[in-house]
């Protein structure tokens, strides 16, 4: 039975969202950011919450975090996301072996989504993401009733990068490299002339980098994180080496974009829990030879008074995926 007419007449919902909670089920914890659309269409953070890592979808949100709509973001080593250039127009993609192009051997075990960036008669640029279906089901199983009602399920890395793009319009206009460094994966996107020129997810996460740094310093990863982050140990060389695999992948991507578009992005915007200490961005800046900006959604997005506690404000970079998912959901269904 369709009540959309009655609901629209009563202004109940009206097909657009005003209040969304973005939830990131990360490896190191669950983060949620509730964002509301204020008068005039601007966003505002209403509440922020952080909980322990409980696995996909197994968290219980505090009452004040239960917005009507939910935008979910998940991280998983099995996730694949790529920007592909397919030599077909967008209306003839049915017989394209998408799973094969993504390197997925068991397509039935994955759910795949595609977002077409641009299309011509001979070529389509599409951003694709593949997520193990079991992870998606487990995530959504906690939201089968009550609030928040799920509206989207995104890859955490892409959600964080989308948040960077949506919250800083300048990122769209200038050539920029966007990086979300998660615990297990890193997502890199390069934007040139208001177009997504490169996007890929790598299985190089902050944990792997810290393990490598710890090994080179002869200490465990956690100790290395504290010692180097707080400047107790001068390990510039070891840090650069630890970040080298990731930096190399980004350089390869940047070179690809430079060759293809004849533009060399000169800025790097990073997010992720590791960059809460800005010194961790320096090895990347040095390797890439670019200016680095750390994207902290809790500092960038306007927030209601007392919405963010000082303790959570200090961990703002960890909320990139949650904030990005919430903002993207609001933008997708704006009045």
């Amino acid at each position, binding site marked *: 039975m369709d*009540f959309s007419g009655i609901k629209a007449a009563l202004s109940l919902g009206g097909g657009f969202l005003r209040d969304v909670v973005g939830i990131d089920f990360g490896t190191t914890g669950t983060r949620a950011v509730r964002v509301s659309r204020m008068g005039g269409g601007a966003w505002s953070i209403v509440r922020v919450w952080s909980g322990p890592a409980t696995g996909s979808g197994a968290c219980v949100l505090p009452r004040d975090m239960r917005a009507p709509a939910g935008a979910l973001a998940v991280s998983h080593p099995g996730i694949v996301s790529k920007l592909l250039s397919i030599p077909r127009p967008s209306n003839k993609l049915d017989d394209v072996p998408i799973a094969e192009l993504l390197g997925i051997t068991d397509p039935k075990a994955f759910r795949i989504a595609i977002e077409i960036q641009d299309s011509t008669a001979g070529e389509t640029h599409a951003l694709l993401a593949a997520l193990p279906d079991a992870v998606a089901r487990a995530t959504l199983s906690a939201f089968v009733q009550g609030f928040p009602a799920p509206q989207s399920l995104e890859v955490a890395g892409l959600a964080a990068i*989308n948040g960077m793009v949506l919250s800083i319009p300048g990122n769209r206009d200038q050539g920029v490299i966007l990086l979300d460094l998660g615990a297990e994966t890193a997502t890199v996107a390069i934007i040139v002339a208001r177009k997504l020129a490169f996007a890929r997810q790598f299985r190089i996460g902050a944990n792997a980098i810290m393990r490598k740094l710890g090994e080179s310093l002869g200490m465990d990863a956690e100790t290395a994180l504290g010692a180097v982050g707080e400047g107790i140990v001068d390990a510039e060389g070891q840090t650069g080496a630890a970040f080298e695999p990731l930096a190399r992948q980004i350089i390869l991507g940047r070179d690809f974009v430079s060759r293809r578009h004849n533009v060399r992005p000169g800025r790097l915007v990073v997010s992720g829990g590791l960059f809460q200490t800005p010194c961790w961005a320096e090895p990347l800046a040095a390797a890439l030879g670019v200016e680095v900006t750390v994207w902290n959604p809790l500092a960038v997005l306007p927030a209601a008074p007392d919405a963010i506690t000082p303790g959570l404000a200090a961990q703002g970079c960890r909320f990139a995926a949650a904030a990005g998912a919430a903002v993207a959901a609001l933008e997708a269904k704006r009045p």
Partner: protein
Amino acid sequence: MNLRVNLIDEHEIRDCSVITSRFLIFVLAGLVLAVILSVLGWAFFTSQRNATALKEETWKWGRIEADFKRAQTLATRRQAIERVASDLDGWRNARISWRDELTALATAMPETLQLTDLRMMSEISVSPAAAPGAAPAKPPELSASLRLIGKTSSPTAEADVARLRDVFSAHPFTNTVDSAVIPQGAFRLDPASNAGLAGRLFEIVCTYRVKTLK
């Protein structure tokens, strides 16, 4: 440029309105149910109230039924009695007081005349009803007459008889008598052998005014 790759299936997206379709269905179903229950409740309550009222009235009727029937009987009897009383009143009003009439006649009677027969007649006439079972068009009427027969041997017999006739045209008979006449041939010779030459027989008929019995 849109970097939002949504992996949720269409059927997994739930309505996030505060008032969902399901909620509306529940509310509508609840309203319909409430209306039905209200109607049924109202009908039940009304029937119970009516049943209670009926029991109460039946109980009251049981208590007053005998009195009511007795009152009905008494009312019927009272109506009959009132009807009889009304008839009697009518009769009393219409009747002729023969005592007064005869007393007045005795006073006014000439001494030369001897009454041999005096007949008082009265008759009630009832006009026929317009239709069977209907009330008469006019109330019953009482008509009365007085017939005097006598004899005399007076030399002024004729004048005396005429004087007696005229008595009925004077007070107090003017109140009751309509006319008094000596029928044709009623003043005649007395055929009796002992009557003598002056002997005469006479007869006067007085007609009284018709009175309505009401």
